[in-house]
């Protein structure tokens, strides 16, 4: 046969092969309740609850491993494995009442001994638990009172919201004691978590997917889907293709520029979930090479110069809201400031003139692909600043590790005047949100990269950390926020939304405002 006949035969064979593929994963999802497929952008680095540092991975782990408390969809801590808690009069101990009749999926009973085993493991200084240090420093010991009660004896008092927020973290999740026995390698790292949650770990293919299957002995309401599969798909456009073709029922973070067309597509629904991530340009307020930035009028001028609403509309396609306080509205302790720096280039110019800063030159740096349209938005901000007469050098960009190596540095090593950051507190309390304005957490000790130091604000933050009265606490934070807002250590930008796209044939998709999705009780529409 002539060679080109072979070519033709080959093409036909390929088409037949493609057509004969099994259609189990292809085609419309229908009303099946067997499997929910969710496409996420990151591959889980670890499934050990203790070692969690990434919200999306934590999300998946929390379907298997539960904690004493649970953050609900409004951001409040609800009873979970603990049904009640009581703080002692002197605030130096907490007693937790544990839920009865709960067993781990391997049959071990959930009781006070299990709680102690887990908390001790998580607070063990030899174990890797990047988020455990706050509680580890505050708690002196964990004691079993009886099988249904546990006492936390404190080394220092913690405000109730802080303690409860911490105890709801996945990092303090409860695994079966049989799975984390001291002396075994699993004590240091357990990649096959066994918990009390609505689902159990079924299988994992690194780089490809994690599957969880319904836990038949779960104590709470039975989920609808037999299994949920979390597929790792790093490319945003491919994720969109998956939900549009029905090969996934839900995806996180589609390409932002496609939001308008997704919102018009009747086969999918777009959920712009509330998030606690604030985006801002932190300014180097200790900048010796640019002393003009130490003048609060100059910093306020830069805030007036940025047209946030226009940037949100054109570059973020509506997936954000202007900041109205140094923290997101979903956080306890948020209060709206009276003067939100509305776009006013004339005011910006006049402030700069009054401060003798008309020839101001500043350098900007921003990451690419770390936050929603970060690089693009940084260029918008740079242009807005130039429009009021500021000389902007950059914005430059770097890959993420190099970026944090450049911006999370002590004041003497700072090399850029302003850098873009997005901060999402791990639990929805102002104590975490205000950490980045606390001078005791200036790098290398923490993330206060604007080197902001106002003793009034610091005093209020420290008072609120241990304040027992909830309303007084909220007021202290409110005063601190208003002062910090006026001091303008940042160019305040916006609060990101957390876009989730899911098939119109599915319902019951929820979210928690710390960039978590909630698919436990999803069901066919």
């Amino acid at each position, binding site marked *: 046969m002539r060679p080109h006949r072979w070519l033709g035969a080959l093409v036909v064979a390929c088409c037949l092969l493609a057509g004969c593929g099994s259609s189990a994963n292809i085609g419309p999802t229908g009303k099946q309740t067997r499997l929910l497929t969710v496409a996420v952008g990151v591959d889980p680095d670890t499934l050990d609850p203790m070692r969690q540092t990434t919200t999306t991975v934590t999300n998946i782990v929390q379907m298997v491993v539960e904690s004493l408390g649970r953050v609900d969809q409004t951001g409040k801590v609800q009873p979970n494995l603990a049904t009640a808690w009581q703080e002692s009069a002197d605030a130096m101990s907490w007693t937790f009442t544990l839920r009865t009749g709960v067993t781990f999926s391997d049959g071990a009973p959930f009781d006070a001994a299990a709680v102690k085993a887990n908390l001790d493991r998580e607070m063990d200084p030899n174990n890797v638990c990047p988020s455990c240090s706050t509680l580890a420093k505050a708690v002196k010991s964990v004691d079993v009172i009886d099988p249904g009660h546990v006492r936390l004896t404190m080394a220092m008092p913690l405000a109730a919201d802080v303690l409860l927020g911490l105890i709801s973290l996945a990092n303090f999740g409860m695994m079966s004691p049989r799975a984390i026995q001291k002396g075994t390698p699993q004590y240091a790292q357990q990649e096959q978590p066994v918990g009390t949650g609505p689902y159990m770990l079924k299988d994992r293919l690194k780089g490809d997917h994690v599957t969880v299957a319904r836990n038949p002995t779960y104590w709470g309401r039975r989920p609808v889907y037999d299994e949920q599969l979390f597929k790792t*798909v790093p490319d945003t*456009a491919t994720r969109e*293709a998956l939900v549009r073709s029905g090969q996934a029922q839900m995806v996180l973070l589609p390409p932002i520029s496609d939001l308008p067309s997704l919102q018009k597509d009747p086969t999918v629904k777009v959920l712009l979930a509330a998030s606690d991530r604030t985006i801002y340009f932190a300014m180097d307020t200790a900048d010796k090479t640019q002393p003009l930035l130490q003048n609060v009028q100059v910093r306020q001028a830069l805030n007036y110069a940025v047209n946030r609403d226009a940037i949100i509309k054109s570059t973020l396609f509506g997936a954000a809201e202007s900041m109205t306080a140094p923290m997101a509205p979903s956080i306890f302790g948020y209060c709206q400031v009276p003067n939100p720096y509305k776009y006013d280039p004339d005011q910006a110019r006049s402030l700069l003139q009054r401060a003798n800063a008309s020839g101001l030159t500043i350098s900007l740096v921003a990451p690419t692909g770390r936050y929603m349209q970060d690089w693009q938005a940084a260029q918008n901000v740079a242009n807005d600043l130039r429009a009021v007469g500021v000389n902007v050098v950059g914005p430059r960009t770097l890959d993420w590790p190099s970026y944090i190596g450049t911006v999370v540095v002590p004041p003497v090593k700072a090399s850029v005047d302003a850098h873009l950051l997005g901060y999402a507190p791990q639990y929805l309390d102002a104590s975490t949100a205000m950490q980045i304005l606390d001078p005791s957490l200036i790098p290398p000790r923490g993330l206060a990269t604007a080197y902001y130091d106002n003793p009034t604000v610091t005093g209020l933050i420290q008072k609120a950390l241990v304040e027992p009265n909830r309303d007084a606490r909220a007021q202290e934070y409110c005063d601190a926020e208003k002062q910090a807002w006026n001091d303008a250590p940042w160019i305040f930008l916006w609060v990101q939304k957390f876009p989730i796209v899911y098939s119109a044939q599915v319902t019951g998709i929820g979210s928690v405002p710390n960039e978590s999705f909630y698919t436990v009780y999803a069901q066919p529409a």
Partner: protein
Amino acid sequence: MLTYVGRRLLAAIPTLWGVATAVFIMARLLPGDPARVIAGINASQDQVDHLRRQLGLDQPLPVQYLDFLGGLVRLDLGTSAHFGDPVLAEIGSRLPYTAELALAALAVAVVLGMLGGVVAAQRRNTVVDVVISTVSVLGISMPTYWLGLMLIVLFAIQFRLLPAAGADSPESVVLPAVTLGLLSVGLIARMTRSSLLEVLGQDYVRTARAKGVSPARVVVAHGLRNALVPILTAIGLQLGSLMGGAVVTESVFGWPGVGRLLLDSIFSRDYPMVQGLVLLFAVTYIAVNLLVDLLYVVVDPRVRYA
């Protein structure tokens, strides 16, 4: 012959040592602190320092280097800083997927490429030849990212024939293999065409035709067989680079191979993983080159190794 193979393998050792040293230095030249990256931006400084000690990154560089070399001699590539488990195990779990994709892509490239090259050579300077040459150039210059997405739009969304991402079902490899293969098709087609043309102009081919050998046998038995050496070289080079992991294709299709693993490891400053993967690619390249050189002996009886 065996001594030849033995000598080649011995010569590989200093090469691999050079690669190991180079990647050890280059990884540490990248800005950014691995302990901070892995602990996450929210971690306290104490946690970061503690992690740095656990990862052995607080040791002086010569000590780290000697530890690394010592591990290599024992075939121990160390523990991944990002995942926490042995580097060899992590790579081992991804390698079969890269191998599957590389071989599938190579099959697409070789079959389509050689067929196209043979047809183009036979119908030199006709419309068919021009079309095949144009498609070859297009194949080499088309951005993989765009091609991959176009195939997804067409076959996954529009026709719902094939999966858009993942490696769960047997047909998941089709789209990524075609995307990756089309890159190499052009190269192999043009190499086949030019090599074959050179051979078909030789006197012995004229003799064969004059003898009455069928056209098909002339092209295949006499033509291709003699043209194979440069084509084999091209194929070998393609296989080497395919095994190096097609980062873009793996990212677009969510394919769990070593290419994406390397990219992620660089971004998370996972030194042991980066070192292990680069060494793996070096070993693969050396092995493939050796294989190709040995195949020359099979294909061309004039080749003898002392």
